[in-house]
């Protein structure tokens, strides 16, 4: 039974049925955290909320200013690309979503989100939080979806070092705080603290989104490769609100942001 499940998709309909059936239990299981959030909000002093509101307004102003600069740079980049007869870069739009369930096992890193087919979600769609890439959608239902996180041991993502553009593959290790770069030669130009972003190779993840930063580099005795541990940029086990990324390639959500 395990072998059949591992090597075939014969049980996928059972899994989908179970996903649908278990959803109400996820809803009930989230009640304590919702009550906690509500109690937290209710017990917060008015002056604290006002201060936070002011801080958020200031932050919003700063980001809007930076966005204007970004728009200018994007337009300039587009003009230069046209001059070079290069292809136009794809524009991404996003959809905000909320986590409604987390896999209870430390061996399988998946989570359920409250967006599904009716919102245009599709299998393979990237998701991210405010800090970086989180994973991709693996199952879509009418009103919810299941995402595989980048830290799952079956997941791999093409990345590049921001400093020098060196490409590699970051693999999950079943540890929420660790990814690994494999088959990097001992002469590879990589340092502790280097930022890694998605390279866009393979076409699954859009390029340029933060994946993580190099935490440690170790030499494996007797091997020609080094072991590079990466701390994910996203708060994999903490983020509650996520973003679904739609590239213009998908055609379902062109340039709209929610």
């Amino acid at each position, binding site marked *: 039974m395990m072998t059949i499940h591992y090597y075939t998709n014969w*049980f996928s309909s059972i899994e989908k049925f179970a996903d649908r059936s*278990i959803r109400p239990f996820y809803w009930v299981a989230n009640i304590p955290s919702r009550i906690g959030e509500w109690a937290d909000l209710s017990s917060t002093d008015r002056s604290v909320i006002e201060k936070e509101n002011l801080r958020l307004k200031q932050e919003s102003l700063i980001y809007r200013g930076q966005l204007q600069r970004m728009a200018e740079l994007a337009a300039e980049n587009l003009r230069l690309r046209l001059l070079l007869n290069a292809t136009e870069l794809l524009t991404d739009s996003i959809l905000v979503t909320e986590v409604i369930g987390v896999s209870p096992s*430390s*061996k399988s890193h998946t989570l359920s989100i409250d967006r599904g087919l009716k919102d245009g979600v599709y299998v393979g769609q990237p998701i991210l939080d405010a800090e970086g890439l989180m994973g991709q959608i693996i199952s879509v239902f009418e009103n919810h979806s299941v995402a595989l996180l980048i830290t799952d041991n079956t997941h791999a993502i093409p990345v590049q070092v921001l400093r020098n553009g060196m490409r590699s593959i970051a693999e999950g290790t079943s540890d929420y705080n660790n990814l690994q770069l494999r088959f990097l030669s001992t002469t590879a130009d990589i340092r502790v603290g280097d930022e890694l972003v998605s390279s866009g190779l393979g076409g699954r993840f859009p390029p340029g989104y933060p994946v993580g930063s190099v935490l440690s580099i170790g030499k494996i005795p007797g091997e020609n490769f080094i072991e590079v541990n990466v701390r994910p940029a996203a708060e994999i086990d903490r983020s509650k609100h996520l973003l679904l990324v739609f590239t213009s390639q998908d055609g379902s959500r062109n340039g709209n942001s929610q």
Partner: protein
Amino acid sequence: MRYALTVIFSLMLALVLQLIPVSADWLPWKPNFLLLMVIGWVIFKPSQWGIGFAASVGLLADLVFRSPLGLHVFLFVFIGAAPYLLSGWLIYFNVIHRCFFVFILIIFSELLGNFMYSVWGVPVDYRDVPWGAISSAVIWPFMDKFLVNVHNNRR
């Protein structure tokens, strides 16, 4: 009928407790509520809730944990077999002894589960094995009291 409803309700409660999200740091400490509930019912009513029951809950656990189908079926049947065979003695033990028995069973279950995951190529950390067993042993007295009450009312 009421007895069967109690079992179903307890399983649903175990499922909800299993699904409550916790941060990664606390995940190894999370007890396997479904397995605990199986052990409990098998100890107190092995003739009605035996190996077939353990296999059914194992299948449910496979679907909830997104593990290869059959992994938890095997695990629950294997672990459930011990209380099934020893239930005649276990119901006369006091709660501390049953607590120790559950602790040992959970340790075995974690070791076996980790071994089977490692067969499928999943990286496992054997250092996390005792934490789930300790937390399971801590909550067992509450579960034990509930099961003893149900068992006595049934008589």
